[in-house]
């Protein structure tokens, strides 16, 4: 499992690679929350391009970050997920709270302008 964090203005782009399960979620939580706390992050984009597997622990990590940034008026967006990952996002209902975009540039445009 690999994690890449990139700051773009007050948006954090999170790229997860490999299997996004309980172990990965525990690791990501620590790293992301540190970044959010110390670097004035408002919005988060989860770029799931490299994710080969996700279960409710991975989804829970995303939902947990959504709850945290929402406190300060921030938003969370998901981008770039493979078809079978999108299927699980749909089934979970997480897409009713968190918009899912096919590409990170679309996700960033949504955050910038509120539309795509």
């Amino acid at each position, binding site marked *: 499992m690999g994690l890449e964090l990139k700051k773009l203005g007050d948006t954090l782009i999170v790229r997860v690679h490999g*299997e996004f*399960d*309980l*172990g990965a*979620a*525990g690791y990501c*939580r620590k790293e992301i929350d540190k970044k959010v706390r110390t670097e004035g992050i408002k919005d988060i984009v989860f770029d799931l391009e490299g994710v080969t*597997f996700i*279960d*409710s*622990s991975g*989804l*829970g*990590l995303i*939902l*947990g970050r959504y*709850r945290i940034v929402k406190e300060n008026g921030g938003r969370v967006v998901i981008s770039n997920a493979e078809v*079978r990952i999108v299927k*699980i996002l749909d*089934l*979970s209902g*997480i897409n009713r709270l968190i918009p899912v975009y096919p590409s990170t540039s679309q996700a960033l445009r949504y955050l910038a302008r509120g539309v795509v």
Partner: protein
Amino acid sequence: MGLHNRIKLEFLSLPVNLRLARIAVTAFASEVDYNVNDIEEIKVAVSEAVSNAIIHGYLEKPDGVITITASLWSDALEIVVEDQGKGIEDLENALQPGSGDDPERMGLGFVFMRSFMDEVEVTTEPGQSTTVRLRKRLPGEVQAQWCAEK
């Protein structure tokens, strides 16, 4: 219904072993030709059951033992995940979507298991153990062939 093959896997309640559990079960299941989608669903269901044993059963203590028994029956793959952890006081409530109170958990573990498998059965002794039995029907052709052999 005849039993064709069976494995039992025991491991410590460490998140690093989730991957191993998924790999072992899908390698076992690959004896019959489920399609990619079925295999993906089996993986998620196993992952949910084992994650629950680690987090809720053993409260993330790493020295708990989790047992997975996978069996190929003539008509279905059966996966039983057991822990000797804290058990579930109110099982009916636990089986409802969104039942947990951890903001980092979606309360969707059992929902996923039920969506992806044909049968989900939970038995528990509060303070002692939890057992989750998952069943998924075999792909049609295999089932027909194996049943005919019996």
